[in-house]
């Protein structure tokens, strides 16, 4: 079961150990940025190429999706949510595509994502309604619920973090076990389910819930 461990790839003198997942994240980042630079190079308003049309369809779909949840006036949050969607989609499906361990099976990665989501959720609430209203809304509708409301601030990102981590870890464990038992052919359809389908679904669920919580916070 040593595949479950997140090994330390190398150690920097001051900062300390850099884990496998961070390195894989760097690779994903590099690939995503490189791809976007290549794909975005020749954008045209008229007569777009097939690649541009596909790109626009994808980005447009994501924007429509977030617009449906958050509304047109919150377009400023869309780029971050699209980034997270792309990153999660890439990192969840990287295991069958490139052979890396998915970074999202490391609790640090999902926790980082969840902390970012928490900051974003609270920030959007404060920005929309002001600090005073944000502080007051913990005592709504009755002051008795205040402890629960405050707990919710932590529970929402924690659930995001644990859902993603649990799904990816479980998928990874099942896949590793299956590979040791039946190494030939059988893992292929199972991998499609656990890595591709579940990975994309979890990426979708993560950004969907983040957007939903933001919307809730902004009311």
């Amino acid at each position, binding site marked *: 079961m040593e595949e479950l*461990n997140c090994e330390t790839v190398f150690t920097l003198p001051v900062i300390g150990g*850099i884990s496998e997942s961070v390195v894989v994240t760097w690779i994903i980042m590099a690939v995503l940025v490189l791809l976007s630079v290549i794909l975005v190079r020749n954008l045209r308003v008229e007569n777009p190429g097939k690649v541009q049309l596909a790109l626009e369809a994808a980005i447009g779909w994501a924007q429509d999706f977030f617009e449906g949840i958050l509304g047109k006036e919150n377009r400023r949050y869309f780029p971050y949510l699209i980034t997270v969607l792309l990153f999660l989609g890439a990192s969840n499906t990287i295991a069958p595509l490139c052979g890396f361990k998915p970074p999202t099976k490391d609790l640090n990665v999902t926790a980082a994502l969840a902390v970012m989501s928490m900051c974003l959720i609270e920030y959007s609430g404060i920005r929309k309604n002001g600090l005073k209203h944000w502080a007051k809304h913990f005592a709504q509708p009755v002051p008795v619920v205040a402890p629960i409301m405050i707990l919710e601030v932590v529970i929402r990102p924690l659930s995001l973090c644990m859902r993603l981590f649990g799904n990816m870890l479980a998928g990874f464990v099942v896949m590793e076990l299956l590979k040791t038992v039946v190494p030939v052919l059988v893992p292929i359809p199972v991998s499609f389910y656990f890595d591709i389908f579940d990975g994309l679904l979890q990426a979708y669920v993560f950004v969907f819930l983040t957007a939903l919580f933001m919307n809730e916070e902004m009311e």
Partner: protein
Amino acid sequence: MLQLNLNLVWEMINLIVLFLLLRHFLIRPVTDIMEKRKKLIADGLQNAQDAQNDAMKMKQEYEDALKGAKQESVKILENARTEAKSEYDRIVGEAGERAGSIIESAKETVRMEREKTMNELRSEIAGLAVASAGKILGRQAGSGDDQNLYDQFLEEVGEAHEDTDK
């Protein structure tokens, strides 16, 4: 496996960097292009709408002008017809008058001619009568009596002539 350490911070930094990079390289340009196209399409539609409105307006104007022209033409035609009618009447009347006057003058000429001829005939007959009377009477009669004589003769002849006329 289940441990949180400094890698959490690195991941967060990674995420922020990735967000900034993707926003700059992917989402901004694509969104800009889509906005531009949307604007282009909206402008095009607006232009088409404007052009159509203009065309409709012009069509209306043309139709009005055409209607006016039709009425005008009907009026002009009517005018021309009445004018032509009056001109025709005038010309026909004039022609009738002229024909009448020509006939009148012709009649007059014929009448004068006849008178003239009759006068000539009369004097010739008188001359003949005088000559024949002179022959008959001989040379005794004076020239003063001659005049009375042939006047008398002429009266008789004239009465006889008028009698034959009747």
